[in-house]
């Protein structure tokens, strides 16, 4: 990482993605991405993960394939994405046009005391997505890079991958509800589905 570099801020990034979401569903990975998405405004069309580490991208794929006309945005961290890294290959096989995977890449496991993740040692997530046949895969360091990514939100010609290098500093936690059944039911209602 470059010294004195001005990093993109995670809360600004997520607020802007949320502002551009349109009718997109958002699935957030455990830890800070869940807090960031909630902090940008609670919405029944958000599904916040509090666990199931490594599963966020695949939940996004499931929602996207169930509703090919409904855009789906996965917002997760580098550590969570790394745990489910094979899912990029699985998404590459399915080629969902309506799916974007956004990683907020601070290079650290922020929830557990800021241990360095693989991305601090040169592993480049956007190249893994590119090699997995994503339609577009972006490395995002600057506001210009990020504004270009916003052209692809909500996703229509995906799968899209955004590897956004962010400031490692953690803002205050902003906690959504924990009740998984409630999160499921309100999300399904937002899709127009029945709940038990």
């Amino acid at each position, binding site marked *: 990482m470059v010294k004195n570099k001005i990093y993109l801020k995670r809360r600004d990034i997520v607020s802007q993605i949320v502002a551009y979401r349109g009718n997109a569903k958002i699935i957030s990975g455990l830890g800070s991405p869940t807090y960031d998405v909630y902090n940008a405004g609670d919405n029944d069309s958000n*599904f916040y993960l509090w666990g199931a580490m490594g*599963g966020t991208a695949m939940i996004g794929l499931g*929602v996207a394939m*169930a509703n090919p006309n409904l855009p789906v945005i996965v917002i997760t961290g580098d550590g969570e994405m790394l745990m489910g890294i094979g899912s990029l290959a*699985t998404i590459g096989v399915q080629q969902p046009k309506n799916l974007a995977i956004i990683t907020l890449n601070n290079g650290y496991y922020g929830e557990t005391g800021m241990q360095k993740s693989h991305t601090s040692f040169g592993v480049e997530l956007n190249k893994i997505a590119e090699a997995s046949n994503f339609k577009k895969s972006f490395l995002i360091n600057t506001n210009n890079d990020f504004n270009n990514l916003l052209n692809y939100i909500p996703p229509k010609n995906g799968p899209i991958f955004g590897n956004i290098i962010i400031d490692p500093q953690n803002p205050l936690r902003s906690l959504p509800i924990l009740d998984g059944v409630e999160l499921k039911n309100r999300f399904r209602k937002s*899709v127009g589905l029945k709940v038990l």
Partner: protein
Amino acid sequence: MKRLKLNTKKELTDTSWENNLFNIIKKHKINFLPYVPDAGHAKLISLSEKDNFIKPIVLTTEEEGIAFSSGAWLGGKKSVLLMQSSGVGNCINMLSILSNCNFPFVTLITMRGEFGEFNSWQVPMGQATQTCLESMGVVVHRASNSTEVENFTDAALYSAFSSDQQIAVLLSQKLIGRKEW
């Protein structure tokens, strides 16, 4: 992988359950079959590849299928996860999403490491399969013959998708035959 049928005389020739299982899955209007392959699932996977309604989804590891099934249900579609017993160990933490959110879930698991297994490396996970599933709150039915596999799968699909239950059907190694080496 080829499997050698070494069971009862009836089961040497009786592979009708493979077609019947596909028909049961059709009857319940299952949309997706996420899978990590096994010889015991080969027929189901190849039939779904030719079907206009059911879509097979190849996974890199079994826990992807738990997350995928949950997402598909959030979007209103039904999945059945196909794997072999060795994959259950890969799934354990991901199964927590099913109990936390009470997602409907059905998995069909072909067993290794229990009956006439040559490869001893399959035995530890095969022997632990049922315990691992049950310890994470998944109800387990063990099917040892064609009738059981059809009945248990039909019942599992009905229960899971009518009232958000989590059910595994184990297809015993006696049913699917042992792998030929």
